């Protein structure tokens, strides 16, 4: 399945759809809708980070929100102190990436099992959430930025053009820049997955023992995959922070990690389109259900998660793909008079 990306028409179709959305949507839609869609774009980057490490590295992290929140807080603190947003954006990738590598060292070099990995990542997230809530006093400040505890950090600078702190982006430009980020992340991940490195990590996902017997360093490999995923999640967090101009400890919440899992599960583990579709579908659904005010959003999320695990474990995209392929084969078989073909 992992044939050369550059010869896969699906890849160009996806990038074209992305570019078209980036250029055409601002013309046809009003400002409010564009700002809504920007939210989906940010969350799609977040979903991709988990979709990559889970689907193509076999690492099921229950704490992707830890890196999302870390990126958001890094960006907020750095942007308030520096007064522009280019360096903070780089830091928001680098710091979660390094933290992911450090955590990954303990997890992967200890060869912890999947269950332990899940528990450790989840507890790390819980701890971040507790610590962030705890920083309400004025003594918790980094430079000029007060962490603000459960009140969060308000008035985070809007993104500006690199080198020109005064030239802030308007909402439409922000949408286009974020779309650009999403497309770049998608392309980079596709290329990474198709590279030798990516093939090895898929091999590890399939059979860890075999991969290590073939001479690959499974521990180092998983650590790198995990760190890349953490960095992307951090980038999404920074986008979230500048989009909302506000960040509070809920960025670290269990709900945030759970949402990422649900998006990836719904869309399909082992694809990159899946997580993006998962975000659009479920955020839209949450929006609809949220207006009903009758149901608690957490309960809905939990119920969706259970139903997905029990009823649709493969997710939407792989299920559809299989249906299409099966239908295609069936049609071909009829045409050739019942002869089995490739």
């Amino acid at each position, binding site marked *: 399945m992992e044939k050369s990306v550059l010869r896969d028409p699906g890849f160009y179709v996806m990038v074209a759809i992305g570019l078209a959305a980036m250029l055409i949507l601002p013309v046809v839609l009003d400002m409010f809708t564009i700002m809504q869609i920007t939210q989906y774009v940010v969350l799609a980057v977040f979903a991709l980070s988990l979709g990559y490490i889970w689907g193509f590295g076999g690492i099921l992290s229950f704490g992707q929100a830890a890196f999302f929140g870390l990126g958001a807080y890094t960006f907020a603190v750095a942007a308030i102190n520096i007064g522009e947003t280019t360096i903070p954006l780089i830091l928001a990738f680098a710091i979660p990436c390094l933290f992911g590598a450090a955590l990954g060292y303990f997890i992967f070099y200890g060869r912890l099992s*999947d269950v332990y990995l899940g528990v450790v990542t989840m507890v790390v997230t819980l701890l971040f959430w507790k610590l962030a809530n705890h920083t309400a006093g004025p003594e918790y400040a980094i430079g000029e930025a007060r962490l603000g505890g459960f009140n969060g950090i308000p008035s985070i600078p809007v993104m500006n053009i690199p080198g020109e702190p005064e030239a802030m982006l308007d909402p439409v430009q922000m949408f286009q820049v974020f779309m650009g980020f999403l497309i770049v992340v998608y392309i980079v991940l596709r290329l990474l997955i198709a590279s030798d490195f990516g093939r090895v990590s898929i091999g590890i996902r399939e059979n860890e023992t075999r991969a290590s017997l073939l001479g690959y360093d499974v521990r180092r490999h998983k650590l790198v995959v995990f760190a890349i995923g953490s960095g992307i999640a951090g980038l999404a967090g920074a986008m979230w922070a500048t989009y909302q101009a506000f960040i509070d400890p809920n960025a670290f919440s269990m709900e945030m990690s759970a949402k990422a899992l649900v998006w990836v599960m719904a869309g399909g583990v082992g694809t990159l389109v899946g997580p993006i579709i998962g975000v659009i579908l479920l955020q839209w659904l949450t929006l609809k259900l949220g207006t009903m005010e009758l149901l608690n959003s957490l309960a809905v999320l939990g119920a969706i998660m259970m139903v997905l695990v029990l009823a649709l474990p493969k997710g939407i995209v792989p299920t559809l793909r299989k249906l299409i392929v099966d239908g295609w084969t069936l049609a071909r078989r009829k045409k050739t008079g019942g002869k089995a073909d490739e």
Partner: protein
Amino acid sequence: MDYTLVVALEMIRAIAWLVLLASGLAIIFGMMRIINFAHGEFLMLGGYTVVISTNAGVNEWVSILILAPVVVGVFGIIVERLVIQRLYGRILDSLLATWGLSMLMMGGVTMIFGNTVQGVSTPFGGMKIGAYQVPIYNFVLIGFAVLVLVAIWCVLKFTKAGLIARATMQNADMAEALGIRTRWVYMTTFGIGSAITGLAGGLLAPVTGVVPTMGMNLVGQSFITVITGGASVIAGTLSSATLLGTISQGVTFLTGPVYGDAALLVTALVLLRLLPQGITGRIFKRSL
């Protein structure tokens, strides 16, 4: 002297607290190698059972010692039948499903009872050690922690059911081949683990009060204790609770409760780097 005594007592209470929080989870983990991510909400359910029945006029001890374990135990068996048993052999899926359950319960209880703290009075009041006031209830917690561990040990060691459970734990396929219905063993284990969790939740309710989100403050400690302990139920829980309780309580004394939790996590991470299977994966291997 008095101060030393109070500190020592607090340490022991912290250890007992971890033992209570983790025992039910450890039984399930030891048997089936899965972690019940809804563990915190099972504790919450036990707490709510106690608060609601006590406020409805039931004797507090009856609701803590009988109602809470029964309600949560039955709930656990229902969950096992409806969800967990479909996912045997798919460990990660069972984690995801129980996490979904956790959020469903948290949201559901919020819808029914609202997001407010409810409580019952702590029985017994306090006693004086020198210049310090100590709640007598602390001794109750310590007593029950000991009792729970002794009871689990006796059941596993001296009864036929315990023998069957140990056989299944050691080698499920072999046990199945010898005629033990392992699925039935799993269901019972899950029920008993849930019941102990319910008891723990009931015992904690007078101290912490109950809120729909109380589970979140407790799961971290429970999970860390269980995975640090490893697969042996008693030796694992006891050794990791002792180690982690001492460290976190020590740090809490010096800096405050939030860093106590952080110390717990860091200790556990370093320990797992050295002993990836938990303490009982290397030491006390043959113990229960």
